[in-house]
């Protein structure tokens, strides 16, 4: 039932707005004639509706959620409450420095922490999600070439396994995205890379470990070759969780990186954001960082804007990015400290390798059986699809009936019937075992009753939804009058 269907004309949540005068001084013709048909419900009706709706979600707080590439780890509750302290939550973004030292000191320290864990020379917290971090990074690469009057560079190289945001970002920055194939062992095809490199190469976008869940071993060589061709290296930080305290993008030779704080730094995913995608750069890209940033004279903190950073690629949002998300990441980082940071990579990697081994032992097919898993790994259900007639989607939907969120399916695109599985470090072994057991069980079900599997899920608020109809018979909002029907 939609909230609109609880609505009755004249009903109101009256605790929430006192009467008010007619607006003075506004010409009649600018005033709205017909009220928007927003729901008219009592406060309790809204509370009940949205409480019950919430219960229809899977979430980290209720289920194992091994969605590959998304790092669905525990979101500490303290990060939420501390970022919402009255003094922080009421601070106006344009408050003067005199009334911002507390907030700015945290932001400055976060910049320093992120520099340290990534091995970069400077960090801007401005980007509001990973994709905007990517944008900033590629825009900086462009600004760098432009500043050197090196204007013939029109291509960004992107491995075929890359996340969709990578090629889309390249295009948003006015580049052509050129795909580089992957070898059977999961590493980049060096010959193809060499062929692709040239004076038209502006740079390459990589994540390491890659979205295939393996560590790109020849990263140094790739860096040398790309640099050799005059291109720069961009690091997609979505997979930083795998390497915290083990290896740093800066040390691998990357010139610019973004981080997904909603992944590695455990800020909540919120049903689709908000995130935060700070960018870090090596020395040579420093002048181009997006503004605003926080600077310090060693005692007080101040904003760095256009004035101090005339070569900056500029501003990415009306204010200073997703500050509340940054505060959550700050709290998280402070709770972890050096040792905790290190352990993130250790235990997320342990969990992934354990799951991979157990699945392989149970007869499932690893996409890269010769490789170590990193914090995530891929299995391909190609064999099951062929032999049993149930595909990765069927497995995914049936897992929901077992009370677990499905892994990422059908991404990366180059692995057929693919499950990208990321358990994260905060899951206990019991969850991992339960997942493997469910997979085995589902395969048994497929053997006896494949049709049944294709009907899954059965125990959720709805059964499998008709996506085709959703896209063909577009129904994108409630129509007034429906509640009367």
């Amino acid at each position, binding site marked *: 039932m939609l909230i609109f269907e609880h609505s009755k004309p004249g009903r109101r*949540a009256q605790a*929430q707005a*006192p009467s*008010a005068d007619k*607006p003075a001084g506004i010409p009649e013709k600018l005033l*709205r004639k017909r009220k*928007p048909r927003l*729901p008219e*419900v009592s406060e309790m009706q809204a509370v009940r509706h949205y409480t019950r709706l919430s219960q229809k*979600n899977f979430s980290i707080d209720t289920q194992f959620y091994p969605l590959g590439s998304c790092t*669905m*780890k525990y*979101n500490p509750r303290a990060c939420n409450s501390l970022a919402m302290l009255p*003094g922080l*939550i*009421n601070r*106006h*973004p*344009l*408050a003067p420095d005199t009334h911002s030292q507390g907030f700015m000191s945290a932001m400055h320290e976060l910049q320093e922490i992120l520099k340290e*864990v990534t091995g970069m020379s400077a960090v801007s917290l401005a980007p*509001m999600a*990973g994709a*905007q971090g*990517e944008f900033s990074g590629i825009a900086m690469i*462009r600004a760098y070439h432009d500043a050197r009057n090196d204007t013939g560079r029109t291509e960004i190289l992107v491995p075929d396994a890359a996340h969709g*945001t990578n*090629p*889309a970002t390249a*295009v948003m920055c006015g580049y052509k*995205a050129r795909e580089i194939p992957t070898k059977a062992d999961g590493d980049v095809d060096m010959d193809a890379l060499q062929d692709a490199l040239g004076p038209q190469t502006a740079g390459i976008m990589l994540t390491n470990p890659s979205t295939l869940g393996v560590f790109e071993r020849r*990263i140094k060589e790739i860096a040398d070759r790309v640099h050799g061709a005059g291109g720069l290296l961009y690091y997609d930080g979505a997979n930083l969780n795998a*390497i915290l305290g*083990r290896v740093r993008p800066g*040390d691998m030779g990357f010139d610019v990186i973004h981080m997904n704080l909603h992944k590695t730094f455990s800020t909540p995913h*919120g*049903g*689709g*954001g908000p995130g935060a995608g700070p960018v870090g750069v090596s020395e040579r890209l420093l002048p181009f960082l997006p503004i605003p940033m926080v600077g310090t004279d060693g005692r007080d903190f101040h904003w760095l804007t256009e004035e101090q950073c005339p070569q900056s690629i*500029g501003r*990415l*949002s*009306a*204010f200073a*990015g997703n*500050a*509340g998300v940054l505060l959550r990441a700050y709290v998280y980082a*402070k*709770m*972890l*400290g050096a040792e905790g940071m290190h352990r993130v990579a250790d235990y997320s*990697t342990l969990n992934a390798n354990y799951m991979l*081994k157990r699945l392989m032992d149970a007869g499932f097919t690893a996409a890269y059986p010769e490789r170590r898993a990193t914090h995530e790994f891929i299995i391909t259900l190609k064999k099951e699809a062929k032999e049993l007639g149930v595909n990765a989607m069927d497995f995914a*939907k049936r897992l929901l009936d077992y009370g677990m*969120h499905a892994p990422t399916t059908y991404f990366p695109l180059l692995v057929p019937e693919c499950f990208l599985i990321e358990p994260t470090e905060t899951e*206990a*072994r019991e969850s991992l075992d339960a997942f493997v057991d469910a997979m085995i069980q589902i395969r048994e079900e497929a053997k006896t009753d494949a049709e049944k599997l294709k009907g899954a899920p059965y125990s959720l608020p709805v059964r499998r939804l*008709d996506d085709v109809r*959703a896209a063909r018979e577009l129904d*994108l909002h409630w129509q007034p009058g429906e509640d009367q029907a």
Partner: protein
Amino acid sequence: MPFIPHTDKEVRQMLDVIGAESIDDLFDEIPDALRCGSLESLGDGLWEQEISTLMQEKAREDGQPLCFIGAGAYDHHIPAAVWQLATRGEYYTAYTPYQAEASQGTLQLLYEYQSMMTELMAMDVSNASLYDGASALAEAVLMAVRANRKSKSRRILIPRALHPHYRATVHTLVKNQGIELVEVAYDDKTGQTSLDDLNRHKGGDFAALVIPQPNFFGVLEDVDVLAGWAQANGMLSIAVVNPLAMALLTPPGEWGPQGVDICCGEGQPLGAPLSSGGPYFGFMCCSQKLVRQMPGRIIGRTVDLDGREGFALTLQAREQHIRRSKATSNICTNQGLMVTAATIHMSLMGAEGLSRIARRCHGNLQLLVGKLTGLGEIEPRFSGSVFHEAVLTLPMETRQVLRTLAAHNVLGGFDLATHYPELGNALLICATENRSGNDMDKYRLKMEQVLASRRQGACATMAKFD
């Protein structure tokens, strides 16, 4: 090791299953030369009590001043229910609803959000959020350039009276695609976007005209004329509006002869706390015919195998995870939780509630303007009618005034000197429903003292007053 559940025994057992000696072994594919040190500058982790104390100190440090700044971020009352619900784990710790069946809570809520926004804006369709108002405008500009088949131009008309940070953001985000922003001046008397200046561009090839309502000065634009002008000149029109104002003012879907093509703006006034500027959310609506050019998530209603109603992501062929380099945008993670809050906020307020808050803010602004201009040396800068914010002219340097007020814990408004030096000693002020009569009196009193001490040529001694 905070948040890690493994016991030593389990680690050993798991390593045994893997067939590894130690956790270090699992990293053996990383070339030795690349391994990093121990991140020791991060120091020891704090336990929850320590970080709580630290954050409380930082929060206290910023002093909770009395704030009369608006300028794109507004201190509205948010019903207590909003965040108590939005931070429920099931909303807070879920992700983008890729598995629709396991995400009907978020999906239905987003569908309801889309329904509310199309109603509020009187537009055909809404997406499920973009990052913020400024970047949403950038997306709208890119969309207009893609969508305007009549125009071959990559030029956009953008009023100088639009929020300067919006203009800067749009510039950053579109310039690499060779899109040019052409500024339209404002009328020095009214503060409205200048029709005269606009008419200089008559017959020019532009993809779109951007129309703010209200504009950055709080001044109300003659939106019917502007939208009509755009249409008449073969441009798409892009509205940038304050969503709260739309409970009171004519919505973009009804501007001019047939409404605007795209509208967008900052969702913050719908339930997002000030929070130092974010997270907020950008909203975007458009006409039906442009829906396939829209960036961002869109939710559709459909049915399940049993014919039961359900909700799912739809039109994904626009998006980067399907279309990659041909996507309408690179956006992926957006601002879901803020939209959750906004949806609950709008449900609680209803149209009448939003309209009352809008009227109350507007009434407060008028009160405040009255109190300050009543001091004698302060004047409203523009003659155009305003909503909710206004520009005043001061008899002395704005920066100086604001600094002295701030020393008394009053944030007196936004100094226009940097972005609009042509306006002289101009100050943009705002008084939401959260500012009481007492608050405004306090402001007036402090301002009076500033002016008085100026007359005595003794501004420096001001800090002694109380």
